[in-house]
């Protein structure tokens, strides 16, 4: 039997009922990837290394900055400007000199993601943006790897364990069972806009480490098909159940080439561009295929559009009237292109990524300012 390296360091957890030497050996043999070495990543990395996880991967493309220090407790003032993975690697190596650390000083994206996560038993999502969160989720679903989710906003946090292989060979629910499609830019403020209490990611990141250790050692109940929310201001925990549905598959790539072709940045950060279609491209599209044109302005708004065959569904009624729209290419327009963007998002969420959904840039103005053919 393989020996436990540095046994004395782990004595206090080895004596725990159900943990034992076998639990410690499982940790020593485990390979855990922590994506993001920020507010969540720092405590997660510290506790995973301290617990004796044998191989830890760290992915982060950032350098330490002064505004990180109130919550990213692995770093000090002297580290400002240094790559986070470099400082974090040194810190966790001193917690477990027998462990192996793989440091990736890069920004993870859809092209390098599958290579990076390959070979790890479990991934911990400590990232700070929706593009990476959805990408990691989809990659882990593709590869059958469990993903420990943690996220924070202001005084509140969320934790869950996604995509755990069950005894019957199926998998537990994942991010897209909770939130099928990413929010677009501006729909959810991030920490730099909304702020975050420094201690909060400390609590949530530590819970992620705890769930990871429980999954590796097989003790206790995981936050599987459950989302735990924590409100630091009012000391409230809440556990919400959710269910995995096969129908969420329409929202994520189902094979690797499709994954590599998915532009997650575009679907989130600058997500508007994914739906926006220029007047010229709209005309081209209309020549190539049958396009449903949908006006989402209120019924009293002028000018009316007479040139094109179209239907009128005010934005407020769109959700209840989605069933009247065919699941084929559609272009929404409004007065200026803002409401139609919301309409495109709603329709895309409903119909999934197989249906082409667009929002006409500049709205009705496109039709008014475009030159008309005058027949004599």
């Amino acid at each position, binding site marked *: 039997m393989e020996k436990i390296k540095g046994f004395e360091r782990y004595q206090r957890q080895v004596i725990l009922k159900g943990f034992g030497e076998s639990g410690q050996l499982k940790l020593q043999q485990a390979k855990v990837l922590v994506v993001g070495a920020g507010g969540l990543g720092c405590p997660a990395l510290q506790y995973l290394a301290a617990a004796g996880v044998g191989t830890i991967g760290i992915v982060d493309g950032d350098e330490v900055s002064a505004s990180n220090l109130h919550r990213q407790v692995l770093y000090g003032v002297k580290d400002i400007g240094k790559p986070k993975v470099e400082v974090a690697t040194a810190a966790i190596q001193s917690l477990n000199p027998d462990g192996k650390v793989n440091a990736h000083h890069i920004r993870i994206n859809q092209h390098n993601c599958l290579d990076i996560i390959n070979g790890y038993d479990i991934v911990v999502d400590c990232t700070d943006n929706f593009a990476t969160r959805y990408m990691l989720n989809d990659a882990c679903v593709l590869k059958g790897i469990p993903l420990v989710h943690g996220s*924070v906003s202001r005084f509140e946090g969320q934790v869950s364990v996604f995509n755990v292989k069950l005894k019957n060979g199926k998998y537990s629910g994942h991010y897209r069972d909770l939130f099928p499609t990413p929010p677009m830019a501006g729909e959810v403020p991030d*920490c730099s806009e909304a702020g975050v209490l420094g201690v909060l990611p400390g609590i949530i990141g530590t819970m992620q480490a705890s769930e990871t250790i429980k999954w590796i050692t097989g003790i206790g109940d995981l936050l599987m098909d459950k989302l735990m929310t924590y409100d630091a201001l009012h000391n409230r925990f809440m556990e919400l*159940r959710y*269910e995995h549905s096969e129908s969420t598959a329409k929202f994520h790539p189902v094979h690797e080439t499709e994954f590599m072709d998915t532009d997650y940045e575009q679907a989130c950060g600058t997500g508007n561009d994914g739906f926006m279609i220029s007047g010229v491209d709209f005309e081209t599209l209309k020549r190539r295929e049958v396009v449903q044109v949908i006006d989402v302005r209120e019924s009293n708004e002028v000018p009316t559009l007479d040139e094109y065959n179209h239907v009128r569904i005010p934005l407020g009624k769109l959700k209840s009237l989605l069933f009247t729209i065919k699941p084929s290419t559609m272009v929404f327009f409004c007065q200026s292109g803002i409401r139609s963007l*919301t309409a495109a998002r709603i329709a895309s969420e409903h119909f999934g990524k197989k249906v082409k959904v667009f929002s006409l840039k500049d709205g009705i103005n496109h039709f008014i300012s475009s030159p008309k053919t005058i027949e004599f």
Partner: protein
Amino acid sequence: MTIRIFGPLEDITGTPALNIEGIGDTLQLRHHLEESYPDLQNRKFVIAVDNRVVNGSIELNENSEVALLPPFSGG
């Protein structure tokens, strides 16, 4: 029924908890909320009833405990 508002959605409702009566199901509730607080139309959130995330629509009663939950990006 009581409705708890999570995260930055509270900026829109102006309060962390609401009491609403006479709403039959979660689809109607979403319409009602989006009418009362139009900015909610542009926010992503799920509705949970009695600690269960709702896909589609389920019936509500006066004792239903509802939560509006947005995703968080921060880390």
